[in-house]
């Protein structure tokens, strides 16, 4: 009972924080210089990790689908099937997991340290709104940089799959030729939508958790931990919801099929 009340409270707080940020954005109070600075600090430092993760995720899925298709005798579909599975669900989820560790935990630790060392209270004391000055640029920076990093990571997964296919003795040319036969424009739209939703989730959750950190250096650790747990659970939940919506649309309008 206590746990469910806490979850409802967290959800409500996150929605309120996000709506406040949206209304501040529409009042044109956003400072783009800060946003660019944050994107540089958060995004560029995570690029190497995203590329590494993307290469390995692509290679894992190519290997795994190859082994399974051999069991069913359908190796001809390897390139398309592994790329499509990676782009549509496994890739966005796994790369968003790693980004929620890197980008989300970094943001919540930074905001949590600010809150614990009473820097946010100092801003309130000066008569300024900390949501406008500190949270708003960070939320948009994290949304933009997570979205772009996810897209980069997904592109790298295709590349990792090709490299690994050549490595285990599948002709890279036939692998690549197979990709457009199964990966449709609809699948690409779905993976871009998923990337954007995961970027918004990482941004809102990490800013909320950092903003509400309490109680010294232990509080910062607790904030980082609960930020990454909430991130992962909501990423899985929204991945399922988006897949469900996509599947319903596919059944009704017959989109996505060749």
């Amino acid at each position: 009972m206590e746990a469910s009340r806490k979850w409802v409270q967290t959800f409500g707080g996150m929605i309120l924080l996000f709506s406040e940020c949206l209304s501040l954005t529409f009042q044109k109070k956003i400072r783009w210089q800060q946003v660019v600075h944050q994107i540089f600090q958060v995004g560029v430092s995570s690029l190497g990790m995203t590329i590494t993760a993307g290469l390995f995720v692509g290679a894992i899925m190519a290997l795994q689908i190859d082994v399974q298709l051999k069991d069913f005798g359908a190796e001809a579909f390897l390139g398309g099937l592994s790329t499509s599975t990676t782009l549509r669900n496994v890739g966005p989820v796994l790369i968003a997991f790693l980004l929620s560790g890197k980008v989300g935990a970094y943001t919540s630790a930074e905001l949590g340290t600010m809150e614990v060392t009473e820097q946010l209270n100092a801003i309130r004391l000066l008569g300024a709104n900390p949501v406008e000055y500190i949270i708003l640029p960070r939320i948009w920076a994290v949304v933009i940089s997570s979205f772009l990093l996810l897209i980069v990571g997904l592109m790298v997964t295709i590349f990792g799959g090709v490299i690994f296919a050549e490595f285990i003795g599948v002709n890279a040319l036939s692998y690549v030729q197979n990709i457009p036969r199964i990966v449709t424009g609809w699948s690409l739209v779905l993976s871009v939508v998923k990337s954007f939703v995961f970027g918004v989730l990482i941004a809102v959750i990490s800013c909320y958790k950092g903003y509400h950190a309490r109680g010294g250096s232990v509080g910062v650790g607790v904030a980082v931990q609960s930020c990454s747990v909430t991130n992962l659970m909501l990423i899985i939940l929204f991945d399922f919801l988006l897949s469900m919506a996509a599947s319903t649309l596919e059944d009704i309008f017959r989109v996505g099929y060749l």
Partner: protein
Amino acid sequence: MKFPKFQNRWRFRREETFNQMYLLGVQSVPIIVVSLGFVGLMMILELAFHMRLVLKHDALVPAFSAVLMVRELGPVITCLLLTSRIGAGIAAEIGSMKVTEQIDALKLLSIDPVDYLVIPRWLGSVFSACTLTVISIAVALWGGAFLATQKLGTSPGEYFNTVFFFVKFPDVLRCLIKAFVFGTLIPLIAAYHGFKCDLGSAAVGEAATQAVVRSSLAIIIADFLLTYLFYAV
């Protein structure tokens, strides 16, 4: 640096280890059950789309999703969730002990901090990774059975028949080996970052972040190596 001498390691701190098993394993059960249930549902949806696209029918969906679940997504997603749940916690706990000089106090009492702090967490994490992987795969298969009966029209008996036909015993064994390796990586990397933590409250957050990032990346890379070793060599 002195290389540690081999000691009789069959003694371990039983009380502390069971405590960690409870904290790391039992308390993670609700999160992992809910998340992996959704993953099981999602796999059926996605593979139904792909199988209809490629093979024009969806009879192989339960088998394909269950094999992918047991071999790949079950251990990886469970252990990534476990990382975010316990990795940051271990790093922050040991880091704040370092900041408040409790580790120096332990050394002063001639208690080895590795023996006192890391070994119980390692045993607890390995135990919880292996058991939670089994629980999560069971939950994901039940979720898959539910959605397969609703959406594809296979009966539950048919579903579990195909699953048990295609998932072989070596797959389960390899899945448990994966869980063991991932469960070892999490506390080692987290404890390393905790012990390396600088003084000050900003450093604890930094250590927790680094622990989560590095151990998730290590899990992905170890998963690639193990999958390659098991299925391609």
